[in-house]
């Protein structure tokens, strides 16, 4: 068990190093230079520009050779320092991320967990029930094939623009002050509905289809047949089938996490929702190396941690992995 976790941990650390390296490299492959953009925005006289550019280059350590920048990045990382934003100078990147994270998590966690749970239940109910199956299956395929932002735009158009039921953009009513009040909280919730719904619906279809297929497979398995031959009621057989069909769905959850996070980023952009997706988009538009790095780093760590948790959960729910780790008795 411990050896298994140690091996897993090693793989995760390796993945982390590679991902962080790519994360560091990608903004630097972009054409142009963030300092030029910053200086041109300040728009001083030409000779002052040159002085300002060299000052900022030194301030952000961008005048150093690339390998030195790479090492600086790692050492700063271990000090919890993600640098200062260029576009919103001199706000630290950690502050910007800290401001955006609650919005992204508020979208992600409920949509991932609820879609997974509801999808599994709906899929399990649909399996072997003709009427429900005939509606759930095509709808599920339709939903799961829908791109996140397309569904987002569609929802914004129909429910936001045409019917006017929900607001089109932002995380809360811009005329309100950010404070702990019922009014502000209500506004948050009201703005949350559409982005949440688009994430939830796309993910729901995939889970429902997967579960339906797994349940049918389990109901045809030998243990299910044996139980039915011994007169076990449907309730017991379905209970076992559901539990066993959950196992691949847990793995699927781990695999899907990355895709859902990506989907959330795009959805936030559609709804101008002030989460990480919105932050990273403005970071890219302003060539803000440190914001881009910081946000992606946060996502990398998040996805890796979530996968680790799923790995541990799997060991708990499937005795076969546990036995396999300790050596087989047979």
């Amino acid at each position, binding site marked *: 068990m411990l050896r298994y976790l140690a091996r897993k941990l090693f793989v995760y650390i390796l993945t982390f190093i590679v991902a962080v390296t790519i994360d560091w490299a990608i903004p630097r492959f972009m054409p142009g230079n963030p300092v030029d953009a910053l200086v041109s925005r300040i728009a001083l006289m030409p000779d002052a520009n040159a002085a300002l550019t060299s000052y900022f280059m030194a301030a952000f350590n961008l005048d150093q050779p690339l390998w030195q920048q790479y090492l600086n990045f790692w050492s700063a990382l271990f000090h919890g320092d993600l640098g200062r934003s260029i576009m919103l100078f001199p706000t630290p990147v950690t502050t910007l991320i800290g401001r955006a994270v609650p919005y992204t998590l508020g979208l992600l966690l409920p949509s991932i967990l609820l879609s997974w749970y509801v999808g599994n239940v709906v899929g399990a109910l649909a399996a072997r029930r003709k009427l429900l199956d005939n509606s759930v299956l095509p709808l599920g395929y339709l939903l799961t094939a829908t791109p996140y932002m397309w569904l987002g735009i569609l929802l914004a158009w129909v429910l936001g623009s045409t019917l006017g039921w929900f607001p089109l953009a932002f995380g809360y009513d811009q005329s309100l002050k950010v404070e702990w009040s019922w009014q502000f909280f209500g506004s948050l919730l009201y703005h949350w509905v559409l982005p949440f719904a688009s994430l939830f619906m796309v993910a729901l279809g995939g889970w429902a289809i997967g579960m339906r297929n797994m349940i049918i497979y389990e109901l045809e*398995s*030998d*243990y299910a*047949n*044996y*139980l*039915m*031959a*011994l*007169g*076990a*009621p449907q*309730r*017991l057989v379905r209970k*076992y089938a559901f*539990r*066993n069909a959950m*196992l691949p769905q847990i793995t699927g959850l781990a695999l899907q996490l990355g895709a859902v996070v990506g989907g959330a980023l795009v959805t936030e952009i559609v709804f101008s929702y002030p989460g990480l997706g919105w932050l990273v988009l403005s970071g890219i538009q302003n060539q803000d190396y440190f914001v881009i790095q910081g946000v992606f780093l946060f996502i990398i760590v998040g996805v890796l941690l979530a996968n680790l948790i799923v790995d541990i959960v799997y060991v708990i*729910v*499937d*005795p*076969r992995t546990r*036995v396999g780790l300790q050596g*087989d*008795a*047979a």
Partner: protein
Amino acid sequence: MLAVSDLKIHYRTLAGSVKALDGVSFSVADGEIMGLAGESGCGKSTLGKALIRLEERMQYVGGEVTLDGTTLPIADDWAMNPYRFRKVSIVPQYAMSALNPTRRIGRMIDELLAARGLKGSTLRPELERRLAVLGLTPDVLGMYPIELSGGMKQRVVMVLSTLLDPSLLIADEVTSALDVASQKKVAGALVEFRDRGYVKSMIVVTHDLAILAQIADSIMIMYAGKLAEKAPTRTIVEAPAHPYTRLLLGSLPEVGIRFEDKRLPGIKGRPPSLLSPPVGCRFRDRCPLAFSKCVEEPPFIEIAAGHQVACWKADAHAQG
């Protein structure tokens, strides 16, 4: 005692219905272990399954099954449920994978018993005693199926299937997937269970005539969805009356003979398609004794006490 009369079970397929069981009548007495043998696709497994639970594509066409004087509602899945496990039980072909892999065995058994309105704790001592009969410790109840060897799983399933002392047990190919040593143990266990009264009578479905010769009181041979012959084991082995039974026995290797330069004879040809079986005797095309009368279907008649055959020439053979 089990009595089956004119049982017909068809399989629904896209090409039409396959007449896997086409009018089968026989009986099994209390305390009798009846072997049921035949080649693949002859309907022996279909018969075994039909007596406990019809699969979705199996279609009840006609016939009656009576167990201890009660008619079994085999066509009605729901009405049949009270009889399953309590009156009729099965040790399935797939005993190795018959246990839920994610439940401890003891807990699974308790949950099954609870679902049938019984208490696991009251039956636990009897369960442990019976496991001990087959050489298993109570520890297995705390284990997951993956922690047991194939033979152990098979024995657990045998104990579980017979826990409620069913009147009839169907053992479907229980020895097929085992090595010779385990085969012998399992075969011995079946006899032991009958002798101890855990089950009243038993139908052992197999293609292995050698096992049947050791444990069965009587053997019934099937061919292409119909009965060919039923007789006490001794009679089947020493004086088979149906030409198919003789050829089947002739295909087996004999102890003490080396088959280096002599090929086992086997039976030429293939069994007929059961989508549209031929009229008359179904073995006609492969039978060395076939003659003009075989285009009529031979009745399954008793030619001696407890010896029934469906062959026009059976009488002549039994006498000559």
